[in-house]
């Protein structure tokens, strides 16, 4: 298992895509945080978020540093579906015919990779948040726990979503289809469910990740629409996310055991 993990690690280390995705994750973390102080400041007249003097709102800026989790999911997809795209699956399963070991090592290495992406990008997000907030003299200081909460949530999200990605890449061998479906799910379907069926939506991955950060942002727009967020608490959200990871890992392994390798 250790040798297989080393082999999987080398595949990531020598893959340009891995580093490209890391750059993307960092970029998304910066883009998700740097403009926020300006947005919140500008929206004050239209949305009753409060102002940057509210520490909760400053926390919300920092917490967006963990926004790059989609790249952890894509990383997981590439770890598995990439084998079929490059036709390297045959070589992989010839050198390690026990599929449960191969899948196990892929799940572990992808999870570590996902954590790595998220910790690095969240660090960049914190830095960009601090720089952007520095332009507003009246901005409150964040609650100290926002950093550890966000880092913990980012790490958990990175691991879980990378595992989900490996499962997806095992089920859908086409890398492109797997990536596009996951983007559609996270950015359209899941958000629509959360918007229209919030009682169901709060159990879906994106809301669970937000729940892990313990972020509570509430406001009402000038048209009276309530835009408050209502997530599960951090501990149940974390356990449900771990449950997702375990279920999808089991699905990936059982699928891989049954299928022929082309």
């Amino acid at each position: 298992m250790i040798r297989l993990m080393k082999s999987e690690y080398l595949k990531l280390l020598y893959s340009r895509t891995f580093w490209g995705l890391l750059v993307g994750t960092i970029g998304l973390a910066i883009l998700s945080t740097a403009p926020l102080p300006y947005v919140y400041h500008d929206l004050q007249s239209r949305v009753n978020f409060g102002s940057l003097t509210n520490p909760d709102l400053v926390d919300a800026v920092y917490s967006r540093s963990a926004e790059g989790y989609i790249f952890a999911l894509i990383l997981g997809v590439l770890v598995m579906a990439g084998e079929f795209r490059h036709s390297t699956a045959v070589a992989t399963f010839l050198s390690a015919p026990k599929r449960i070991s191969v899948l196990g090592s892929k799940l572990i290495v992808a999870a570590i990779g996902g954590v790595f992406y998220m910790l690095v990008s969240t660090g960049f997000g914190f830095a960009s948040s601090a720089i952007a907030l520095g332009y507003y003299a009246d901005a409150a200081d964040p609650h100290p726990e926002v950093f550890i909460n966000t880092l913990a949530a980012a790490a958990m999200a990175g691991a879980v979503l990378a595992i989900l990605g490996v499962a997806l890449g095992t089920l859908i061998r086409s890398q492109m289809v797997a990536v596009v479906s996951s983007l559609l799910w996270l950015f359209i379907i899941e958000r629509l469910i959360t918007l229209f069926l919030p009682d169901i939506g709060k159990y879906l991955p994106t809301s669970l990740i937000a729940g892990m950060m313990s972020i509570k942002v509430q406001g009402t727009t000038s048209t009276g629409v309530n835009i408050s967020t209502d997530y599960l608490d951090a501990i149940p959200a974390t356990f449900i996310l771990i449950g997702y990871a375990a279920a999808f890992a089991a699905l990936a392994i059982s699928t891989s055991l049954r299928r022929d390798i082309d």
Partner: protein
Amino acid sequence: MAVIEFRALTKKFGQNAAVNNLTAEVEQGRITGFFGPNGAGKSTALRCVLGLASPTSGEALIDGVHYREIKDPLRKVGAVLDSGGFNHGMTGRTSLKIVAATAGIKDARIEEVLDLVELTQAADRRTKGYSLGMKQRLSLAVALLGDPEIFVLDEPSNGLDPIGIAWLRGFLRKLADEGRSILVSSHQLAEMQHTVDDVMIINYGKLIAEGPIADVAKGRSLEEAFLQLVMPK
């Protein structure tokens, strides 16, 4: 002594039997040619031997066990199934390093196999720029990494030029002379006539001839014997 055994191996895709009740053996220390028309089931049978495809019934064994049960498969069996199995963004050397890592094979062996397949000078180029022949040599290098005693090669001469084919012939002969056993499929019958000791011929998934080449050819060329067996008048 048989090192590879097909025991009533059948592999169906839906209702279609790609391999149909195949029973045959590959003897130790010999080069066995595995021949058949396109779609005859050669590659499917080899994939069953190597644990990549699950037989519908019957079994395929290596040294009496299923491939998936071999503890250190790279050191037992070297396989070439296709020449496209490399990440094109990586170099030949990196591709070997990744495979070697799964068996704890040292870097020095990577240099040895690169030298054996005469690919040392191109080892640090991305495989995207490799010719088909170079990819075949790299596939052979992967098969050689664990210094195995058994080789399963699916059309290894694909893409090789005449010099490469001559090189492959000498290479396989050298491996067999060292006591290794080789099961090799190919469409290059004229070439294989000078390389193999035994033959197995299948058509529509069924074994139609097996034995030492002289017994199967019966004074004809291998190509003539093959054509008469698969296209009887």
